[in-house]
């Protein structure tokens, strides 16, 4: 009996001390949280996490990146509340839901905790209802339109395209899809199908394949992030669809970069998310230290094409873009 208790206790403490001890040190250090709606399991957020950590090191502060395993706003709000309870010196969060974030951010500001927004904002019609101090990121809807416009010269009038969404219900991704659909309809008189391809690569390929079989006249596939791009690129390679179906995507990672080099992918929007992590910590730090008001920061709308891909590729490999 006593041994069981003892073993449990030791195991618990061992895990806690081994894993968390560094977190306990430096009690009077400033602490900043960056809380995302998805964790570093997504390659995109791993880059943000690196930005957060690098900024923390550069400034000599504790900068903590947190996010739920999968897209989960209530979970993210709970994490935000916990960061408040931990008396953070500043919190950055993605505005993943216009309604759910209003109250927690108001509460944080009421308690004197500075908050900045990263990565995604509330939709246009609700702008200004959530009292964060600045936005560091790109406009998803506009980015969707830009990507679609880039593809226009390569598409015929009335072309049929498909937008593959790997996280159905994600406000930012849905906004990208909406932007794409509007440009295709308005400038081309074309039709856009929206496809939920899930985050599972095998399933995604299966879903895309059967969609193309049912719609052989599909001219282009738009993916809205690496988790959609990777299986799509694999399918285009495996099924020899290069040149038959065009593809464009958002956000960079090694597979997408290679596909751009190989001419499988026409291009990808780079929102330079490293900056979203890094600048969030910098703005919060400067605010806490010198009361400098955070300012909006556009992390860019660069479109990576076969022409400029080589320069970017090395940085993607290193995990900075």
């Amino acid at each position, binding site marked *: *009996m006593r041994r069981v208790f003892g073993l449990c206790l030791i195991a618990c*403490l061992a895990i806690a001390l081994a894993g*968390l001890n560094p977190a306990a040190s430096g009690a009077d250090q400033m602490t900043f949280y960056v809380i995302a709606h998805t964790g570093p399991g997504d390659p995109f957020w791993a880059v943000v996490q690196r930005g957060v950590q690098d900024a923390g090191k550069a400034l000599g502060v504790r900068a903590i990146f947190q996010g739920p395993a999968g897209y989960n*706003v*209530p979970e993210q709000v709970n994490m935000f509340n916990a960061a408040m309870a931990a008396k953070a010196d500043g919190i950055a969060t993605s505005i993943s839901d216009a309604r759910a974030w209003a*109250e927690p951010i108001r509460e944080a500001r009421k308690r004197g905790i500075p908050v900045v927004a990263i990565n995604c904002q509330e939709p246009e019609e609700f702008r200004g209802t959530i009292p964060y101090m600045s936005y560091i990121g790109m406009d998803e809807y506009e980015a969707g339109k830009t990507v679609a416009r880039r593809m226009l010269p390569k598409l015929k009038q009335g072309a049929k395209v498909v937008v593959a969404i790997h996280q*159905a219900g994600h406000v930012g991704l849905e906004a990208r899809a909406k932007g794409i659909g509007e440009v295709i309809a308005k400038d081309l008189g074309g039709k856009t199908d929206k496809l939920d391809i899930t985050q599972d690569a095998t399933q995604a390929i299966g879903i895309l394949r059967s969609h193309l079989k049912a719609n052989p006249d599909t001219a282009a596939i738009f993916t809205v992030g690496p988790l959609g791009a990777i299986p799509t690129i694999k399918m285009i390679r495996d099924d020899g669809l290069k040149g038959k179906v065009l593809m464009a995507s958002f956000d960079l990672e090694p597979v997408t970069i290679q596909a751009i080099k190989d001419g499988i992918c026409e291009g990808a929007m780079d929102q330079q998310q490293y900056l979203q992590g890094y600048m969030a910590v910098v703005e919060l730090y400067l605010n806490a230290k010198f009361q400098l008001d955070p300012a909006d920061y556009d992390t860019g709308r660069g479109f990576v094409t076969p022409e400029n891909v080589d320069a970017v590729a090395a940085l993607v490999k290193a995990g900075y873009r």
Partner: protein
Amino acid sequence: MQVITNSRRRGATPAPGWSERVAMRQMRPLLSRREVGVAVALVLVFIVFFSMKREFLGAGTLGDIVTVAAELGVVAIGASFLMIAGEMDLAVGSNFALSGMVLAMLITKSGWNPWLALLVALACGAGIGAVNGLVTLYARIPSFITTLGAMMFWRGIALYLSQGWPISIFDDVPLLRWLGGARVLSTAHISAVWWLVIGLIFCLVLEKTAYGNWVFATGGKRVAARALGVPDTKVKMTNFIITGALAALSGCLQLGRMGSMSPVWGQELSLEAIAAAVVGGNSLTGGIGTIFGAMLGAVTMASIRIGLVMVGAPSYWYMSFVGFIVVAAVALNVKLGEVISWRK
């Protein structure tokens, strides 16, 4: 009534020979409680986090913990009520999202009276539970499979209904404040009160009523229960419906707190609810368990969630921690069970 006393609950009908064992009663009533494992785990979790972050025992943190525990806990109460009757519901997460979405859509898109909409949303959840029950009991499919299918089916329906978009209620709807929006004490939301009330009701039903005895009997030894005249099929059916309704209620509570509901939320809820029930001393195979244990299980998981953020640990520690606690708490319970039966 041997069946029922086998479940080792307090307040059960005394079995023959009970009086002879009275001498052991100083230690046994405490140790034989199914909640011992989870209580020890919870204390450990608190010690670990408090030693690392003093703010962990602040009123704000405790309020956050009960708020998080409430939404999981309401589902866990239903899950353990059904588990004790010998069945399982994996569809509670999908039910949670769909019912929450039904409430949100009826208020925003159809302009219904919010209270009426709440009734419909709960009925929707109960209906999903009823379908699970009907298929399981009349087609004789294991509930694991029925509800696995239901989990996918209803998630798909929820996605279809909103075309993937979350639904938000921006108007000031008093119902939402009543469900989960309002705060009652420090950072604790009102949903925690509903959770405690529901927990108390189900504790009493399970421990103090004839129906509670039937639930234990149905999940324990079904054939014997049937021979004793327990309407086991009706009991299971009722519990499926209750579980569905509670999952729906949890969805509505979260909608109240967040003001939004997305068709993709609550994906881990089914397993978390079952984990909370199991950590709290409920048997996966039925016949054994308590509601209070499941509630403590939910508090333990919420504490881990909040504590890890507060100490600044990488968020993936949550899964490992919960995994460890599940096994440790159950192992402790098994060990205690052995010790107690050995001392008998």
